[in-house]
């Protein structure tokens, strides 16, 4: 019951009215970011991160995480009203959400989406409250080898669980590590890969990369299809909210299933996007109204939204306890922790109790506040979407440039950001995943230092990663994940071979 006491302590931290103000600002900004194309959770947080340098870390993380929750809520608005997913994780919401809006049931779809997001997030926060201290406690026993093993597992799971080609996942990931290594080596003080230039001594900042890859890259992709917002307008009345709420409890099984899927994929670095698709697929298979899916079935809105929000929220669990973010946005926040001078990892739960429990308590409150804000302000945000793209696009580019500049007050960073934008556009079109790149860029230095420390302990022998059952089993799991694409090909071959034999046998 320690968790309860700590949680109450966390609510005490929240009693500072400024924290509540930052929370509300964060949510409104977040919804705005989620609604606008080209601005998403990851680069929205990246752009606003420099603004928080002067705040206390607790106030800053509350505002940034509120932006994240807001962005998760906001993605649903564009999906349902305009059939344009504001965020990748709300693609699955368009399948049934937009048909509902076309049938004039936009208010129902939006209420269902927001409520499901809320329920998903709430269940995930409960998981964080009770599981995170246990994980952190366990991780206190970790040495450098164990930390590197966990990082290895994180990166290998991208290969094993991603739908992209394993080669491409690896290439993108290693590009991230390579970019992270540019600049001064923190151990030997040697300059790496600067090729004699002073500007590169600073290295590549992940914030610049995130703003370019996700911001400019996304704008270019959106632009290519040509963007015209012609959507349904709606407002939500109290009556329609209550009517929809009456219908929702019968989907309790969908809620539980989707939250479980979401929490699992959020904690392992699957992220919110696969979670929403997987949850939609499962709901489709298990539902009684299977035939109605894709034509405006409310359960088809409930399932992906619950999972996306559960995944987005639980992505913070490994970030806080192990220092390993479960999603690109969590990765950016982790970078923020490092900038504020906090070392993410199990010690955070001991040394920074105010920070950790203030954040966890704020998750409860900000999701309640978020639900109220989005339910009441939908018409406002829908109106923002009616601003033509030829105004929105240059403004977003300007904001991305300002965001890139403020990181180091360096003009060159803005140019680099734009190149990352072009790179992001091409990579995305060719099916290279961007999440492992960002995670590798953020974690690169941490992963390298834990690798080097373990190498120092073992005097350069890789056997340290199999030296005890804990590190050994994590590494074995990581290898399984890494070679999963190969293994699954083998399994397919074997099974097909067997089927052919059986086919021949029956024919004979």
């Amino acid at each position, binding site marked *: 019951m320690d968790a309860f006491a700590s949680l109450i302590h966390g609510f005490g931290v929240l009693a500072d009215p400024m924290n509540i103000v930052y929370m509300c600002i964060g949510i409104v900004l977040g919804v705005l970011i989620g609604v606008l194309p080209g601005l998403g959770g990851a680069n929205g947080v990246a752009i606003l991160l420099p603004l928080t340098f002067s705040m206390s870390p607790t106030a800053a993380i509350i505002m940034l995480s509120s932006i994240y929750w807001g962005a998760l809520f906001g993605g649903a608005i564009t999906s349902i009203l305009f059939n344009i997913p504001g965020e990748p994780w709300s693609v699955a919401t368009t399948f049934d959400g937009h048909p509902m809006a076309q049938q004039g049931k936009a208010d129902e779809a939006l209420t269902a989406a927001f409520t499901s997001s809320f329920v998903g997030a709430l269940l995930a926060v409960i998981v964080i409250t009770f599981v995170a201290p246990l994980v952190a406690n366990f991780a206190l026993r970790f040495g450098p080898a164990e930390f590197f093993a966990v990082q290895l597992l994180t990166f290998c799971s991208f290969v094993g669980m991603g739908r992209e080609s394993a080669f491409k996942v690896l290439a993108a990931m290693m590009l991230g590590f390579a970019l992270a290594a540019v600049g001064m080596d923190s151990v030997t003080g040697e300059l790496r890969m600067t090729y004699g230039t002073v500007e590169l001594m600073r290295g590549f900042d992940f914030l610049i990369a995130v703003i370019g890859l996700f911001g400019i890259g996304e704008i270019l992709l959106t632009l290519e299809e040509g963007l*015209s917002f012609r959507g349904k307008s709606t407002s939500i009345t109290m009556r329609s909210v209550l009517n929809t709420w009456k219908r929702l409890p019968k989907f309790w099984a969908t809620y539980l299933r989707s939250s479980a899927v979401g929490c699992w994929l959020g904690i392992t670095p699957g992220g919110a996007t696969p979670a929403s698709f997987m949850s939609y697929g499962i709901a489709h298979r298990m539902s009684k109204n299977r035939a109605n899916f894709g034509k405006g079935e409310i359960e088809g809105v409930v399932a992906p939204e619950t999972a996306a929000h559960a995944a987005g929220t639980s992505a913070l669990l490994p970030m806080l306890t192990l220092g390993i973010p479960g999603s690109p946005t969590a990765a950016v926040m982790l970078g923020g922790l490092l900038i504020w001078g906090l070392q993410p990892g199990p010690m955070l739960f001991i040394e920074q109790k105010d920070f950790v429990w203030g954040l966890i308590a704020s998750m409860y409150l900000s999701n309640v506040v978020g639900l109220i804000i989005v339910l009441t302000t939908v018409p406002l945000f829908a109106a923002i979407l009616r601003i033509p793209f030829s105004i929105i696009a240059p403004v977003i580019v300007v904001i991305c440039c300002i965001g890139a500049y*403020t990181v180091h007050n360096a003009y060159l960073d803005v140019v680099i950001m734009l190149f990352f934008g072009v790179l992001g556009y091409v990579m995305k079109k060719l099916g290279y995943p961007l999440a492992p790149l960002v995670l590798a860029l953020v974690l690169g230095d941490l992963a390298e230092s834990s690798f080097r420390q373990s*190498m120092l302990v073992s005097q350069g022998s890789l056997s340290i990663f199999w030296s005890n059952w804990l590190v050994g089993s994590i590494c074995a799991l990581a290898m399984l994940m890494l070679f999963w694409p190969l293994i699954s090909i083998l399994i397919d071959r074997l099974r097909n071979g067997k089927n052919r034999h059986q086919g021949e046998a029956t024919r004979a």
Partner: protein
Amino acid sequence: MASEHDVMPSSAPGESQTTITTRGMELILSGFFMVVAGFVMYDSVRVGNGWATDGPEAGYFPFYVGLIMFLASAGTFAVNLLTRKPDLSNFVARSSLVLVLKVLAPTFVYLGVMYFVGIYVASILYIGLFMMWLGKYPLAKTVPVAVLIPLALFWLFEIAFLIPLPKGPLETALGF
């Protein structure tokens, strides 16, 4: 109504939409990554990728990063080069590419202009140009939007948050 100011790819009838095949682009990008990986490995060997008396040298970790990146990109390269059914679909339709370039080119110019006149004046020009050229807005509608947004940003950054952004001669003349 807003729809006439939407930015849509447009093409003259009969105009060819082909630019480059997806396979060609795959080869270019994975080739580029192989070159990048080569640079990473080259530099790691330069700073030393072995074992010094005090532990791993600075290039120890990046060398393997470069090696894996090289092998993985070589894999993508080989798959696309040797496959029996190459993906010959169009990487990007010409009309879409034109639109993307129409946004990218002014953005690069914007960065160049920003270097000399500061971010605020450059933003006024950039937003204005974008609205008039791509959005086909009349001047009377363009000017208020293009001026007010950078002004709001000026207030937010220079006055409210005290974060200095690049400024040019105009701001200096006004005393900032």
